[in-house]
């Protein structure tokens, strides 16, 4: 079984790129492939201009990686942990490390194993930002953390490394929406979409059509209309290729007796839910090669 298939993403330099998807979608595998922890059986990944399979110390010195399930040297005290990491990086900045310790309120004399989950993530982040990496990979960095800690982590990543490219995976859609510039959605190892956040928001609309009288949903609805449903005189769907000019004509064609049409801008959470729902039922009736809706 392939963990990832047909996955093509180009992460623009300087972007904040979010990789989202349900559990088991392949987000962590994608991250680990980029870091040469896993090697692709086919295809390739290029990181900082180098094939991921050839990543060496020179590249790792410019990559910051923080993962929710990374094994940390738990016996180390925070202060020693930071000084241990320091020696690995020629570009380590003591003043940045000190600032991060102050910002995160890290207790230097406490062992990592005695820290809360949030504090451990902060320590890991401090050890990964103090050398001002060019690429920051964050694998589910916010899961299980309270809102304040999440906010602090996001701010510190964005403020302290403004030139870095950030590639992160997360379940926290609300949080991502506030700062990601690009988003990609993985479902069962396949990419359903990858684009700029602004264009994603622009092309998704929740449509509600009020009909003159109850009637079944017409046949031949466009594939880009996701999860169509009808209840009484109200039909609804999510248009994944919303175009205001074409939209009215399409509504007239499929719902000639429409009395009113409302279009709602969708938050990221609603878009992802619609895409997930659209991807799931199709799987049961059609072979895998045909399951993906036109998103």
């Amino acid at each position, binding site marked *: 079984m392939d963990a990832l298939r047909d996955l093509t993403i180009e992460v623009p330099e300087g972007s904040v790129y979010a990789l989202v998807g349900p559990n088991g979608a392949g987000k962590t595998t994608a991250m680990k492939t980029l870091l040469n*922890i896993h090697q692709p059986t086919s295809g390739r990944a290029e990181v900082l201009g180098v094939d991921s399979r050839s990543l*060496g*110390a020179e590249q790792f010195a410019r990559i910051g990686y923080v993962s929710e399930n990374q094994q940390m040297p738990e016996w180390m005290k925070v202060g020693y942990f930071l000084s241990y990491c320091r020696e*690995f990086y020629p570009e380590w900045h003591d003043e940045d490390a000190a600032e991060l310790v102050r910002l995160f309120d890290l207790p230097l004399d406490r062992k990592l194993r005695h820290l809360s989950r949030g504090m451990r993530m902060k320590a890991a982040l401090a050890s990964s930002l103090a050398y001002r990496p060019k690429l920051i990979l964050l694998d589910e960095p916010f899961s299980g953390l309270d809102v304040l800690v999440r906010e602090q982590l996001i701010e510190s990543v964005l403020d302290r490394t403004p030139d870095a490219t950030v590639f992160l995976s997360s379940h926290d859609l609300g949080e991502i929406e506030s700062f990601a510039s690009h988003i990609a959605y993985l479902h069962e190892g396949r990419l359903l979409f990858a684009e700029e956040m602004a264009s994603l928001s622009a092309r998704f609309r929740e449509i509600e059509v009020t009909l003159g009288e109850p009637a079944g949903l017409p046949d031949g609805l466009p594939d880009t209309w996701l999860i169509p449903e009808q209840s009484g005189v109200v039909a609804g769907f999510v248009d994944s290729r919303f175009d205001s000019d074409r939209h009215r004509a399409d509504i007239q064609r499929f719902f000639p007796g429409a009395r009113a049409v409302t279009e709602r801008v969708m938050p990221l959470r609603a878009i992802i839910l619609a895409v997930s729902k659209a991807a799931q039922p199709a799987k049961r009736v059609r072979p895998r090669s045909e399951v993906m809706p036109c998103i």
Partner: protein
Amino acid sequence: MHLMLHIFKKDVRRLWWGVAIALLIQIAAAWFDAVEDVAVPLHDLLMVTWAVLLALAVHEDPLVGDRQFWLTRPARWRVLLGSKLLFALAVVHVPSFGPISWCWRRADFVPGNGWRAF
């Protein structure tokens, strides 16, 4: 070399108690051999202690798995291997020279003399 030493120092810091125990056993074994001339199973115990110590040192930066901290740091496997070999050298081999040379001295054995006899 710098990173190799750095990781080695980290391992010694982490396993200092094991290093200390191994040294104590080694000194005791040499004492019983040379002074008391009593047969005690300290050499076997020393072997076990060294084996455990080396295994612990290797497991400080585990080789198996995909979640290890060191995998994404700019130290590759050669550096790691070198640091573990250095640990074995420093903790097992170098300390052995002390008790061995002491035993030789007590037995009036000078290694060079054997060669000169030829």
